[in-house]
């Protein structure tokens, strides 16, 4: 049995109002969806103003960079929260016993492209670093999947349930100096042997070995270890 009393509203009864609103909404949604199809939103990312490069032939494997990274960002010492990862196998032969994994601050960063909610974005206020805003991150981890490098250069933070990555120390509440491009990078500063360097020129994006450079010099050679360059991917 139908309800017999349906109130009227400003010349149009509610039922008709709802029908009109709903129909308009359906139409608008359809149009919006068509307009906002993937591929219609092209953005050119400005290049990062700074990059970390490493020398896998030089690293001591002390993990000080990793502990310091997590300290300056999170206030605690954790390898799993470090945005630079050093992997080592003491049974392997030099130079394949160590792999250093830094974020490349890619020119056309797949992780930025992969983020559906602009959490992983280019921060134009901090030298165009590719960084993850934890307030926007929904934890879908598509950015981690998208990273072309192994091990993936983004980390899952189980405490905040968001993703994080190297921001060249832009957001480091426990670093007393200014971080970010133009400022201090903790891993570079703390490395006892100088196996990590900060450069402003973007390494060749088409060369998988471009981020491994020769940071060993005559002084290193004088200590008895080779200063010849190595080609290492990653």
């Amino acid at each position: 049995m139908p309800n017999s009393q349906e109130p009227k509203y400003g010349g149009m009864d509610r039922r008709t109002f709802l029908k009109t609103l709903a129909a308009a909404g359906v139409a608008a949604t359809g149009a919006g969806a068509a307009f906002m199809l993937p591929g219609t939103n092209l953005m050119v990312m400005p290049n990062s103003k700074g990059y970390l490069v490493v020398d896998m032939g030089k690293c001591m494997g002390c993990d000080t960079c990793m502990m310091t990274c997590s300290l300056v960002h999170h206030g605690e010492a954790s390898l799993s929260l470090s945005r630079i990862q050093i992997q080592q196998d003491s049974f392997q032969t030099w130079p394949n016993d160590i792999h250093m994994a830094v974020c490349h601050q890619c020119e056309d960063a797949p992780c930025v492209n992969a983020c559906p909610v602009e959490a992983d974005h280019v921060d134009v206020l901090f030298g165009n670093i590719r960084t993850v805003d934890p307030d926007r991150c929904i934890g879908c981890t598509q950015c981690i999947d998208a990273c072309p490098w192994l091990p993936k250069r983004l980390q899952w933070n189980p405490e905040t349930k968001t993703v994080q990555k190297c921001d060249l120390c832009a957001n480091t509440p426990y670093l007393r100096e200014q971080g970010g491009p133009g400022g201090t990078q903790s891993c570079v500063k703390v490395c006892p042997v100088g196996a990590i360097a900060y450069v402003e020129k973007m390494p060749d994006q088409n060369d998988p070995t471009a981020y491994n450079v020769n940071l060993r010099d005559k002084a290193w050679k004088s200590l008895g270890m080779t200063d010849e360059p190595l080609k290492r991917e990653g």
Partner: protein
Amino acid sequence: MAEEATHFGYMGKILHIRLDRLDYEVIPTEKYKQWGGGHGMGSALFWDYCEDKTIQDGRDPKNVCIVAASPFSGTPTPSAGGRCEVVGVGVGLQPIGWFTRSNFGGRFSSMMKYAGWDAVMVSGKAPYPVWVDVRNDAVKIHKAKPLWGKSTKEAQEMIIGFVGKEGNNWGWDRMPSDRGVEYTTKKPAVLCIGPAGENQMAQAALIHESSNGAGQGGFGAVWGSKNLKAISFIGTQAVKIADPAALVEARFATKELYAADPEKPDAAFWGPMNSPAKPVMSIALPTDKARVSACHGCINGCRGIYNLGYGNQNHCNVTSFYAHHAQRWAKGDRIEASKITLQAGSICNELGLNTYPLKHGLPWLWYLHKKGILGKGKQIHTDIDFSKMGSVEFAKAFLHALAYGEDIGKELAYYGFVPTAIKWGREEDWKSGRLKFTYWGMPEHGYDPRAELEWGYESLVADRDMNSHCINWIFWHVNVATLRGIRPRIDAGTLAKLVTDKMKPWVSSDNALNYATENMYSDDVMDLARWHLFYTRYWKNSGLLCDFRWADLFNSKHPELQGATASEEAGEHIFWNAITGENLSFNDGIRRGQRIYHLDNAIWTLQGRRRDMLKFADYIYDRPFDKGHFPFYMWPVKNEKGEWIYRDVMHRSHNRKKMEEWKTRFYTKEKLDPKTGWPTEETLKAYDLGFAEAELRAHKKLGGVS
């Protein structure tokens, strides 16, 4: 779950593996924080959990072995993050297997912390070989049948392959945890024994990775006697820090003010912190295709990784025990000799053998061989071809014999060199110093007690070769400069002041560093030894600062030649307090070290220690010191005019009577019973060890009680 918010520096939990029951219990760390960590924590745990402290052989199933980290572990405290202490009743020390200690580097202690644990303790004996698999809070005890018999390298690789199975396309491994899903790119850190430990050889070590070894004390035999092959830790957690910004600042300051600059290495550096990062090899580096390799958190690494397929992480004695023989074999080809030495070291590591006894043991065996006493069909028969000593072939055969208890290895490795020498009728070699096993049935370190006084004194009043180089760096710097014919960088007087200033108020004047013969038995020198004994017991063995970089008593990088030790920018206490939130002074730490020493002494007392046991081998008293690293042993002394100079302190011996007087004064100063060296009521009260009284009384081992 640990109450994380209240634990700065600590993880809040200690893992107790009860091997006889094949289960484990979790012990809260809170009660043990007063001991710092490492050795102190280990001694306190041993006191609480070893029911029979009278045992004298570490192979006894009642033995309890503790492997302990500290608040520094897993943090970027310079040259501390990766060190780890092992304590328990040892195997092979003479006349009693003392409650003793060893220490090793790498990343085991840090990974143990990241898994959520401050220490692991093993008690009892498993009914069959087992290994322990710890992944964060998940602890499993597995049968070790596939691992038993394997070398330390094979066993570790098998464990790493087993634990690392939950990978994904990220290149990160997933680990179980309270926080749902967590990931790591790291491999597990494993501590294990090799065949030497499985066969319970006194010379058996605990090995971690390629060449981090807890060699002294025969802990490999302890684990072997417990049917324990390995313990593996992998973790994804964090060490909470009270003042993270201060910790980072202190680390930066250490690099800036005290540590060697890799771009400007100073070949004539003085001070351990200023030592350039490079592999420390006894001969030449065998190849330049190498990197310097460091333990977790180190400020200047000291080992090497090579492209040779062997020798990785070998360091110090592991590269020197065979060096002399290899050089002889290689007829002066230093590179070849170096390669042989590295291979020999790696063989030891894989077999799980301590190289230390071979330092002076091998020259003695060579002597016996040259004299026609040792060999095939000789008075001491062996099928091992000693004419090939110095070759890789000999190293393989001999070391295999030691690990498996074959041939002469059966006695040498199981009982030790001194008991074997006596059994072979060669006691005179030991007494005369031909077999340089100077104290507790163990070899001296290359720093003869007749010259380097503190080394001898500290080894005597403790349980083993003390192996703490803080003051010994003076020997190296001065004598290398002398050898090169160059003037020492720091003059003797300045050096004496720099060093002794750091020791106040424990030492009253710079005379403490005056090793002149007339000053050998002075209270000043005793006070230096006491300071060093307690500094080492706390800051190094308990805090776990690395012996190779700490204490930094003087430093040529600093404009005033000051060392990092006790400094306001980068001192030991600065790091400690930044991490733990405590307010410990540098000297508070030394007082804690004193307390820990006295707890150790209480354990030794229960084990049967008596004053008359504290003695050097006879040659230390009967013969002058005339053969060491160099033809001289230069040391700071005050001459007849009271001026500071460097003088050769060789060619003298200790005096038995004066040593006895020294012991009496030492005991008196430490409030111990001078007749026995046992703790008295006063001792226990002075060092807050009242909990030990009941047990000492029950065993009639309380000093001063007639």
